[in-house]
C-alpha cells in the first residue's frame, strides 16, 4: 500500500543550488534596481524595495487536520492562519492563499531546512513545494502608498476592509498578485516571475504622481 510518510521522506531534494558559482537572478534582475536606487531624489514619499531571493514554499493540506496545524506550530511557532490572514515571526511569513493552501516565505538559504522540518513534523498527508524561482516580493511604504495601490488593484484596500495582516490574492493591473498589508501605509506584493516586468512597469507608472525611491 502507498505509504505517505515513506514517500515524503524519499523525495527531499534542495531545489536551490548551494553552489555559489551559480548566479541567482531575481525576477526583477533586468530592472537593475541598484542603479535606479542611485537616481533622482532620495527623499520621495513612496519607498519601494524588493525582498529579493527569499525562499518561497507552498504548503497544501487540510486546515481542519490537527496533525497539520500542530506540525506547523511546532516548527514555526505560530498558528496556521485562517481565511485572508497572515502571520509573521522572525523573518518567516505564512500567508493564507486558499482553504487548503498557504505561501510561506523564509530568508534566503533557509527554505530547504524549513521544508525538511515541516515534512518531518507534519505526520499527515500534505505537500510542501519550493517555488522560490517563480516569484518575488516587493514592499511599498510611505505616505500615499494606499492611494497609489488603489490604481493597481480592484480590491478595496482601505484599512477598514484590509487591516494590517490581511492578505488577498487579487489583480495587480491585469496580472495576479498576493497583496498583504504590513502597516498603515505599508504593503507587500508577491508577483510572479513571468509578470514581473509588467508589474514593475505598472507600479512605476502608478507612482509617477507621488514620486518614489528604491531602497536596497
Amino acid at each position, binding site marked *: 500500500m502507498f505509504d505517505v510518510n515513506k514517500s515524503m521522506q524519499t523525495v527531499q531534494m534542495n531545489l536551490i543550488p548551494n553552489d555559489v558559482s551559480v548566479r541567482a537572478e531575481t525576477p526583477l534582475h533586468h530592472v537593475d534596481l541598484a542603479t535606479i536606487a542611485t537616481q533622482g531624489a532620495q527623499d520621495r514619499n513612496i519607498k519601494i524595495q524588493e525582498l529579493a531571493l527569499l525562499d518561497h514554499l507552498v504548503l497544501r493540506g487540510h486546515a481542519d487536520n490537527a496533525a497539520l496545524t500542530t506540525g506547523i506550530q511546532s516548527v514555526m511557532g505560530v498558528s496556521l492562519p485562517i*481565511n*485572508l490572514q497572515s502571520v509573521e515571526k522572525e523573518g518567516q511569513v505564512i500567508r493564507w*492563499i*486558499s*482553504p487548503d*493552501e498557504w505561501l510561506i516565505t523564509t530568508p534566503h538559504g533557509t527554505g530547504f531546512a524549513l521544508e525538511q522540518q515541516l515534512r518531518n513534523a507534519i505526520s499527515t498527508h500534505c505537500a510542501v513545494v519550493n517555488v522560490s524561482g517563480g516569484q518575488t516580493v516587493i514592499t511599498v511604504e510611505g505616505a500615499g502608498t494606499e492611494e497609489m495601490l488603489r490604481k493597481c488593484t*480592484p*480590491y478595496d484596500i482601505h484599512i477598514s476592509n484590509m487591516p494590517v495582516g490581511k492578505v*488577498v*490574492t*487579487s*489583480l495587480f493591473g491585469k496580472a*495576479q498578485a498576493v497583496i498583504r498589508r504590513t502597516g498603515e501605509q505599508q504593503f507587500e506584493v508577491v508577483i510572479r516571475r513571468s509578470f514581473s516586468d509588467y508589474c514593475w512597469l505598472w507600479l512605476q507608472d502608478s507612482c509617477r504622481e507621488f514620486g518614489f525611491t528604491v531602497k536596497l
Partner: protein
Amino acid sequence: MFYIYCPYCEEHREEEEFHASGEAHIPRPSDPDNCTDAEWGEYLFFRTNPRGLHHELWVHGIGCRKFFNITRDTVSYEIKETYKIGAKPQFTHAEEKV
C-alpha cells in the same frame, strides 16, 4: 462591475477575479464503458439554456482558485446565492432535481 461572494474566501470580491465555467451539477456517468453514444453525448455536449434560474459553475481564478456554484437568474442577471462544491442550492425550480 459588480461583486460576487466567494464561499471559500467568505467575502465579496470584484467580478473581474472570477470566471464562469458553464452549467453546474452535471454528474459524470458512473459507468462510462456501458453508456450509449446518446448518453455519453448528452453528458459531454448538451446543456440546458433556461430562462430564469440557472445553476452555474464558477471559479475564483484570480483569488483562492476554488470552483464553486452560483444560482443566477438569466433574465435579471441577479445572483440568488453562491455555494460550495458538494452543497445543495437553496433556490430551485419546482420540477428541478439537483
